[in-house]
């Protein structure tokens, strides 16, 4: 508890590769939630070791999308039964990474968000080398149990990190 500033948490965690359960790496982090909860928490972290190199898979995905004749459009990933087609798996993973940013920017000590589903994703044509996707995702907030639709525009290229250039909370249906 830091008087006049907020609450700071010191964390020790283990990161596990979603695609390879045996691949883990230790991590330490400090999270500062500000008083008033209207600014995103500050996060500092250190990773003890290296994250796996995904260059080959990244390039395969990048080239596949680049060579599509029509812009990619898809809905409901995973579907009602939890299925994700192999072609859509990288699109799903990209959303997961990008939603991490949105979740961070909207977290307080009283929220716990998870990406529940990609409702819709549309590739946006670009003239440069980047790939751009316009996602509508559903975030599940554990404490209130609400499902919150959220729009996010995601930019990506194999040699650059994922960027969320625009995001906005969407109104819920009745």
């Amino acid at each position, binding site marked *: 508890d830091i008087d006049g500033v907020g609450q700071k948490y010191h964390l020790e965690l283990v990161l596990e590769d*979603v695609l390879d359960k045996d691949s883990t790496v230790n991590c330490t982090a400090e999270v500062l939630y500000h008083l008033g909860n209207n600014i995103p928490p500050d996060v500092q972290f250190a990773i003890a070791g290296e994250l796996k*190199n995904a*260059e*080959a*898979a990244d390039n*395969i995905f990048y080239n596949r999308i680049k060579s599509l004749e029509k812009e990619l459009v898809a809905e409901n990933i*995973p*579907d*009602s*039964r*939890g*299925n994700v087609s192999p072609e859509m798996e990288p699109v799903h993973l990209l959303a997961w990474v990008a939603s991490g940013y949105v979740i961070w920017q909207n977290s307080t000590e009283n929220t716990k968000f*998870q*990406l*529940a*589903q990609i409702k819709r994703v549309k590739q946006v044509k670009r003239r440069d080398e980047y790939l751009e996707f316009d996602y509508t995702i*559903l975030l*599940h907030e*554990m*404490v*209130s*149990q*609400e*499902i919150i639709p959220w729009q996010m525009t995601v930019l990506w290229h194999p040699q650059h990190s994922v960027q969320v250039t625009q995001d906005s909370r969407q109104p*819920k*249906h*009745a």
Partner: protein
Amino acid sequence: SKMKLILIFSALFGVSLGLETFVGHQVLRIKTRNEDEVKKLQLLESLEHLELDFWINPSSPALPVDVRIPANSVQAVKAFLESHGIWYSILVEDLQVVLDKEKQDMACSQQRERSSNSFNYGTYHTLDDIYAELDHLASEYSNIVSKLQIGESYEKRPLYVLKFSTGGSNRPAIWIDAGIHSREWVTQASAIWIAKKIASDYGADPSITSLLNKMDIFLLTVSNPDGYVFTHTTNRMWRKTRSKNQGSLCVGVDPNRNWDAGFGGPGASSNPCSDSYRGPSASSEVEVKSVVNFIKNHGNIQAFLTLHSYSQLLMYPYGYKCTEPADYAELNALGKAAASSIRSLYGTTFTVGSICTTIYQASGGSIDWSYDNGIKYSFAFELRDTGRYGFLLPATQIIPTAEETWLGLKTIMEHVRDNSY
């Protein structure tokens, strides 16, 4: 005539296709360590006379290479790999054996489906299909299983409970329910598997046999049928009941904030549009009232176990307040034992604790109600997973989830059997 010639040619063509066999074909997985080895495999790829069929082509050292090799090229390819020190393993020793078995399995399961109305427990089903299977179980195991209707949902769908009993009169009983929150599909799916398991284990498994010789089990596989149908037809993420709220366009009440336990307290919303809306009053929801009435009228329920998803938690009261229940020590120990049983099967870890300290303060919850009404062994399970798929758990995980959950339930039920009160 021309037609006849075409027919003969297509018949011959069809026959020749059918004659292709994979006897002696092997599938190898090759792991390259560097670009040089990748190039060697690409050279191999170019040798057409070997008739190699690459399921994963050589492209980068980071990815494995899977290749099907016709019988008469197998030795040559292995010699090549070995002479260059390239690592490989045999994925399939004889492809034809695998194909034959697959054909056999498919014919078998098709026949089974045709002849005995076989229910696939490893997939998600509609309400109608689940209800049909309840009838099927009650008829196939009529000596111990019967179906009761304990009420009707808001939209007038029957609320069916399976009773597992070997006789007696109002024996001490265990209550299990699933699907009170309709989007938690793995719970209804697990419940129907558990129903089959209890029925078929009687007489075969000593533990369940001794349990059912002393106690009854009541299983409500779909606590919120209106919500469940809605998740199939309209909104996969629907949680609540489908009751109309006076003065609001928003529909539904959170049935697990509607019980008469700290009702109206923190952790439940008073806004009808909220997914944790508590409702206008305690037990306002017919789905909740029906269970309350059943349990009160029975009068001899010793355990109340409810299934939710997701998060992998095993919780005991309280949710509406953060103070320990009187039986904290025993419930915590039993919860830990159950979590240990769950973990023994596939390594799935469940966190054990009271609702308030484990997730959040939440009023109007079912196990708080059951506990405060004298049912000591009150537990709420949150099944797989921890967020990767969340509510959209792939069907391939239904049976493993049901199997491990069953072990946890069994641990608790055995304790109840041996500690009647």
